[in-house]
Every structure is written in structure tokens, then in C-alpha cells.
């Protein structure tokens, strides 16, 4: 599908398991998001497959391996590898999570939250500047979903993000599904969260659908960000609300499970695109991608 003038690019996160399906449906998307870690120390067939997409469709770069929030020095060699991949993908921006996944010697695949305090924000600000100095495209921070909160957190999610992004000039990859889940799980108003974000902050958006976990040990059912099911209407409503206030240039549907349900994926893309088209017209797609880079 060719990009429509005046609306942001809509696409999906590239996943190896649906490589063939993605290529067969490439004209249904205006952009693909590449996980840079899938280009590092991975299967050479996967890497070749990813780089084969360069020039066929606009690509944007996303990371999961930086562990920005670990209270230890950043892995600069990893960042240099990321910079090389981003350049090879010709990606206009590079995004990572405002989270930590590891400590020295131990790694968990989970994106874990940070205590939302000014002191922690100061540490993150310094690290974001390091990232910006080594990866030569604009850096975007992504808000995560979190199951628990640190008891010493003093700031709201929006305050924490605004502070770090304002100090560094980093943009925001707004995961709308994560806002929806966090608001439900931790009982805050997701619309107030969107309202609290500085205008112009949101450069890219993630959408996804999860599951509800019911467990007798939990005080209430928990919404989990499993990237496995259709995007809920409530998250689409939140996307529409966001689009009325922010000008993201890229919207990515994330799907990591039940990937065989291709029709669901295409249907979600269509539902997202319908919300996008209904929002006010903005830049052309090409301008939008440049916007993400600037």
C-alpha cells in the first residue's frame, strides 16, 4: 500500500516467524519496525532477510538490549553495533525502553520499571546523552508496561518521561497499549496521561493487544502486554485521542504471539489506519519520516 498524503505511516514490527507472510503482504504496510537486536549475534539467515528489506519499504529501528535503566555504565560496544545497524537499515530514528533488563552477570528478558524519582531521572538523562552521542539518528524513549511499582517512586509516568525528554531532546515512542494497561492495572486516568505529555513529544506509536491474567493470589485481574491478541477498542480510542494532540510519524502494530493469525494482524492494521485517517491531516509520509528523524 502506498502512503497516503497527510497521515502517518502505519506498519508492523518485523518478526522472523512471519517473514514470508510479511513479504507477501508488504504492500499493506507503509513502514516496518526492525528490532536491532535481531541483527546482532543472530541467525545469519534472519539478518540477511532483514537487510534484504532495505530500500523495499521504509524501516525504523527499535532496541530491546540496551538496558538503559541499569544503574551501571552503558555497554558502549553494543551501542556502536546498534549505530552500525541503524545506518545499514537507513532508519530515521532509534528507540529503546525506559527500563532495565539486567544487572552485571544476570539478565532477565523482562522490561523492568525504574523508581520514578528526580535522582534516577538525572542518571537516565546522562545515559540518553551518551546514546545520542554514539547513535547518529534521533533517539526515542518508549514507555513500558509494568506489573509493580517501586515504593519510593515520587513522580507520575508522564512527569518522569517529560523530565527526561525535555532535558535531552529525546522524543517519545508512545506505547498506547502500555498506557492503557498501566492505567487499568494501576488505576490512573490514561487520558490525563496523554494530556500531560508535551505537544510534539510523541514521534512514534506502538499498538498491541494483550491478555488478562486471573490468579487467586492477585488482588484483581491483571492486564498483560502479551502482544498476542487484537488491539482492544479502548486502546484504539486512546490512539485517536493521542492523534488529536500529537503528531507521530510512524505507528507500529506489535505482535509476538499467535502470529499465524495473519487476518487478525491485517484487521488490526486496518483498524489503526481508520483511526489515523479520521484524525486531522498532517504531513506527507515522506515528510513524516523525516520528521521522525528530526
Amino acid at each position, binding site marked *: 500500500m502506498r502512503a497516503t498524503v497527510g497521515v502517518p505511516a502505519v506498519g508492523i514490527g518485523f518478526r522472523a516467524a512471519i517473514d514470508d507472510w510479511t513479504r507477501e503482504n508488504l504492500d499493506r504496510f507503509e513502514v516496518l519496525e526492525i528490532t536491532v537486536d535481531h541483527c546482532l549475534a543472530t541467525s545469519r539467515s534472519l539478518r540477511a532477510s532483514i537487510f534484504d528489506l532495505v530500500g523495499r519499504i521504509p524501516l525504523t529501528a527499535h532496541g530491546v538490549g540496551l538496558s538503559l535503566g541499569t544503574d551501571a555504565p552503558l555497554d558502549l560496544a553494543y551501542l556502536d553495533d546498534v549505530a552500525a545497524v541503524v545506518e545499514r537499515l537507513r532508519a530515521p530514528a532509534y528507540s529503546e525502553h525506559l527500563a532495565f533488563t539486567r544487572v552485571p552477570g544476570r539478565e*532477565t528478558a523482562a522490561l523492568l520499571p525504574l523508581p520514578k524519582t528526580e535522582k534516577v531521572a538525572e542518571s537516565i538523562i546522562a545515559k540518553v546523552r551518551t546514546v545520542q552521542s554514539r547513535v547518529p539518528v534521533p533517539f526515542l524513549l518508549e514507555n513500558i508496561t509494568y*506489573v*509493580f511499582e517501586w515504593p519510593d517512586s515520587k513522580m507520575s509516568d508522564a512527569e518522569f518521561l517529560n523530565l527526561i525528554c525535555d532535558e535531552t531532546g529525546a522524543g517519545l515512542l508512545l506505547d498506547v497499549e502500555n498506557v492503557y494497561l498501566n492505567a487499568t492495572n494501576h488505576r490512573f486516568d490514561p487520558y490525563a496521561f496523554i494530556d500531560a505529555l508535551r505537544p510534539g513529544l510523541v514521534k512514534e506509536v506502538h499498538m498491541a493487544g494483550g491478555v488478562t491474567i486471573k490468579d487467586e493470589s*492477585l488482588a484483581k485481574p491483571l492486564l498483560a502486554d502479551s502482544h498476542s491478541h487484537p488491539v482492544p477498542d479502548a486502546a484504539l480510542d486512546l490512539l485517536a485521542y493521542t492523534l488529536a494532540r500529537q503528531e507521530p510519524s510512524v505507528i507500529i502494530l506489535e505482535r509476538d504471539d499467535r502470529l499465524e493469525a495473519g487476518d487478525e494482524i491485517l484487521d488490526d492494521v486496518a483498524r489503526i489506519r481508520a483511526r489515523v485517517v479520521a484524525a486531522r491531516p498532517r504531513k506527507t509520509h515522506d515528510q513524516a519520516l523525516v520528521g521522525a528523524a528530526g
Partner: protein
Amino acid sequence: MTKPLLERQVSLIAHLTSGAAIFSRGGDPAPGLEGIDPALLRVEAQFSYAKRMEKITAVLPKTFELLGSGKEALVRAFVESCPPATLSRLENARQFHRFLLSRWLHEEPDPPYMRDVAACEIACAEVDTDPEQYQADRANAEGAHRSAVRRSPNVVLLRCAYDVRSIFEAPLPNPPSLAGDGRVGAVPAKRDTPLVIAMPPGADGPQVLEVLPAIFDLLAALDDWTDAAPTSEGAEFAKLLANLAAHGLIEVRR
């Protein structure tokens, strides 16, 4: 006074990757994590555990099918003794493989050919990984003298006690899971089987090939660049080298 952030992060990840957090249903607060609901931490721990095991079963699907009914206890013992050290799928699988090898020092695997199947699966993942290193090795070869040959860096040699090739031709349940019944394809014959795991040119993925013992020994000897000047065997040897090169098993510098 609040402890330093890194100290608290260490406590958190140690807890989330522990068997206690993943498998037990206790409600005691984790040490150093007071003020955080233990039930929520257990959910987080189970997310993380599921992701890790997904990576390992993706590399070792046939091994997991062969583990049969004892796999739950085995996996629990693995989790409790081998915390995750990296996000890498291959490294997590290698860690599980090392754990299995240490167990098999004391008790024979059941079925006995599982040792060979696991080694082949790890080898398949290895030959399909690290192309940049492979490219670097090729670049280093620029300095090698003329008419030299060596084994391709992304070839793995395995001398197996069973002919497990039939296992690799059998269909797998999709997706592979922790809940397999322990049966994978035909039972392999017990015989010394020299196998080469390689990615022949044009192949979609790694292949498990049997070679003659003499070829296996030749490939094993070609660790480094070796003079391939004509010998008394002359044309026959050159033909053999050309054949090995065509299958991606050796590199030739002329």
C-alpha cells in the same frame, strides 16, 4: 535510608530469576524488595521465565521433545542452578545444553541418543549464527599464502554414537513445547556416525550431513590454512577439494 539503586536492581533480578519466585506460591516479601507485592513479582518472574524457555526450546526443540515426562523437574533444576546471563537465544540454549551434559555425567540420557540430538541442535544454531565473525575470518584469510585450504569457520564436526539424521528429518510439533511426549521420529541406529553440520551454499538453513570417516578426519585436520599444493594424488585430490568447497565445507585460496 533507601539502598543504592543498583543494589536493589540486583536483588530484584536475583529474585525474579529464582526458582522460588517462578515455581512457588509463597507470599513472603523478597529480601530487599519490601513494599512490593510478592504476587506481582511472581507474575513478573513467570513472564521472564516463559520468555527464556521459549528461546531455549526454539534452539533445542527435538531435545525437549525427547526429555519426555521428566522435563519439568529437569527444567526446574536448571532454573535453580543456572540463572540467565544473557538475552541471547543461542547462549541460553548453550547454558541448558551444558546443564544437560553435566547431568549426563552421572546418569545416562534417556533415550541414549538424546546426547547426539542435543549436540546437533546446538551445532545447527551455531552454524547459522555470527556471520560477522565469519566475514572477519574470511577477511583475515587475505593474508594466507596461495593454494591454501581450511575448514569453513561455520562448519561443526560431530562424531556421534547414533545415526540421528532420521530425527532431523522428522516433523516437529508446531510450536515445540515443554509438554512433548518424548517421541521424536524413528529410533536412530546405534553406530559410529561422523556428522558435519554446515550451511551449504544456497541452503535455507543448516544441514546435518554424514561424511566418510576419512573426510571427517580431513576436515578435522583443516583447522587452519593449509598448503594445498598438488600431491602425488594430483587430480583426484583437487577434485575432492573442489567438491568439499562446493558444499561449503572448506574455503580455498588460490
